[in-house]
């Protein structure tokens, strides 16, 4: 009889999600469900009646780590609905911002992936915060790459977290020649670092792939050759940037998209039968607890051509460059290959940028209520925003965010792996689950004394 194990919450990614795993007597996953357990709702409703300038700013707040992707996708969905064509130099600035964001994201994800991996030739897992070499130099390189990505993003986007420069119709400001030169210098420095970092990460992932076993929470488990394999297919709108309904040949199609309820997709109610207190971090859910994925999942299940698909680095490389390595390691390696691509793209755009040109459309029609969509290739995958704008006001708005596509796909990719490696598979997707608030709640026994109050 199948056993049921639950890992909740999953760790080393953005947001809150959990894994409910039906396993056989050997602990191999027969069916797994990975689902978001963060309820966040109402952006579609909130957008109605707002201006086309407000809505992308609202959209960029739904996530703490993807504001750039949501801001660009939101703006371009407005432009697509209104029929606004932006100047070439504005487009170049947006691509620079996009690539800078991707670079930071890959580097951050390196830190999240490394603790599952081994130092080649040893049975020692990597602690990215170790003061020992070679890890220390790698960690410093990662930090520098993150810094370079964020600095380029700040120069092109106006601010380093929530970009202020993009707007409907193009960008508020072009770059000064000095800023352009600075980006060029940073990109050249970053390219060399990224190449070394890519090679290091690929060596680490290949080493893991060759290993027979991994240790998780004191348990030694076999690493299957097919770790993370699935047959769900891929979806990507562009190798680097995106596509929209304004394109001559749009590379995403709303007619192929459909959405079903979690009820139709996830497993029904069941009881946790086994628990493992030593599983990091803090053990699995105690046995006897009830799990009900189809009721608990907080996101719908988007389908493309009637099935869930993978989005992200491997999807981009598969659709546009014929990359075909399957599984978790294939996915991780695809992500590393985007490091240098992103830097080359920045250099190409900086070369082409004319600092004296206008970056704002001459004409901004106010919209006739047509449906427009924009698919932005965010670090984690295709981020589609759909909008209808009429007379300057948003009538309809919807967001199909990357990890929502990946939840059901990754769920299928869990089958056949030891349950202890489910999080390794999940982390391969660099998941970003919707954020809630970050409000601090000061505990009862830490109730503030009067002198801390600001009068």
């Amino acid at each position, binding site marked *: 009889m199948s056993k049921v194990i639950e890992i909740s919450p999953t*760790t*080393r*990614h*953005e*947001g809150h999600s959990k894994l409910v795993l039906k396993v056989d007597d050997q602990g191999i996953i027969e069916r797994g469900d990975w689902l978001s357990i*963060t*309820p*966040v*709702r*109402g*952006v579609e*409703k*909130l957008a109605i009646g707002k201006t086309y300038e407000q809505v992308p700013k*609202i959209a*960029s*707040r*739904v*996530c*703490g*780590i993807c*504001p750039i992707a949501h801001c660009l996708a939101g703006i371009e969905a407005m432009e697509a609905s209104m029929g606004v064509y932006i100047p070439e130099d504005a487009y170049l600035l947006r691509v620079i911002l996009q690539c800078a964001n991707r670079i*930071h994201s890959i580097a*951050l994800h390196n*830190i*999240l992936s490394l*603790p599952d991996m081994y130092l080649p030739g040893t049975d020692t897992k990597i*602690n*990215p*915060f170790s003061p020992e070499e070679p890890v220390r130099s790698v960690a410093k390189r990662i*930090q520098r790459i*993150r*810094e370079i990505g*964020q*600095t380029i993003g*700040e120069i092109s986007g106006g*601010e*380093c*977290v*929530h970009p202020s420069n993009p707007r409907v119709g193009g960008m508020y400001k072009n770059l000064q020649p000095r800023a352009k030169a600075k980006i060029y210098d940073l990109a050249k420095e970053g390219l060399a670092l990224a190449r070394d970092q890519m090679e290091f990460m690929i060596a680490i992932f290949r080493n893991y792939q060759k290993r027979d076993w991994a240790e998780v929470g004191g348990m030694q488990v076999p690493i299957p050759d097919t770790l993370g394999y699935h047959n769900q297919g891929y979806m990507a709108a562009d190798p680097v940037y995106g596509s929209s309904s304004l394109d001559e040949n749009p590379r995403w199609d709303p007619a192929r998209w459909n959405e079903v309820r979690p009820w139709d997709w996830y497993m029904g109610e069941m009881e946790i039968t086994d628990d493992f207190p030593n599983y990091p*971090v803090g053990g699995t859910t105690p046995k006897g607890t009830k799990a009900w994925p189809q009721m608990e999942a907080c996101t719908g299940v988007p389908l493309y051509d009637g099935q869930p698909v993978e989005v992200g680095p491997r999807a981009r490389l598969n659709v546009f460059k014929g990359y075909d390595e399957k599984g978790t390691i294939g996915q991780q390696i695809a992500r590393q290959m985007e490091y240098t691509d992103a830097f080359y793209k920045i250099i190409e755009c900086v070369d082409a940028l004319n600092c004296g040109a206008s970056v704002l459309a001459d004409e901004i029609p106010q919209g006739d209520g047509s449906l427009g969509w924009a698919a932005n290739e965010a670090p984690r995958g295709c981020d589609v925003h759909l909008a209808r704008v009429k007379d300057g006001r948003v009538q309809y708005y919807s967001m199909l965010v990357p990890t929502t596509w990946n939840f059901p796909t990754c769920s299928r990719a869990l089958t056949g792996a030891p349950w202890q490696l489910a999080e390794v598979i999940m982390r391969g997707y660099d998941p970003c689950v919707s*954020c*809630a*608030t*970050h*409000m*601090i*709640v*000061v*505990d009862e026994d*830490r*109730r*503030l004394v009067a002198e*801390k*109050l*600001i009068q």
Partner: protein
Amino acid sequence: MLFPRVVVAGCGNPLFADDGFGPAVIEALQEVDLPGDVKVIDAGLGGPHFIFTLLDPEVTKRLIIVDCADFGAEPGTLARLSVEDLPPGAYRDAHSWDLAEPLQRLKDRVEITIIGCQPKHVSAPDFEMGLTEEVRAAIPKTVSFILKELGVENGAL
């Protein structure tokens, strides 16, 4: 240089009513002339992964965080908190890589002040925009407090 000697970060999500206090204070600070070595940043929900884990303590010596915080006072009340006052996990990087808290890593090398404002209404999980009157009224006081902390004279002080 991504981050200068002094960083003021406004944290929180404007989509959850009073949770937008931090970014609203940043918007107000952006209207003020500040010294060249001070940077004010609308951190939104990205503080841990875009700022706190990227600060170089060799360069940045002062970090002021503005956020809403529930400490059981009247809405709009402000409190000055230190890293020790925070419950575990308050600014854990949402990516929680090794469950280490980025501010714990920094606190011995960077002077950190957290300005918390007691919210009246945080709408999560539903999106709702706009601060309540009480919390909005706390913005000017917060701006003055930060300017005083930074040693900046302005006409209002």
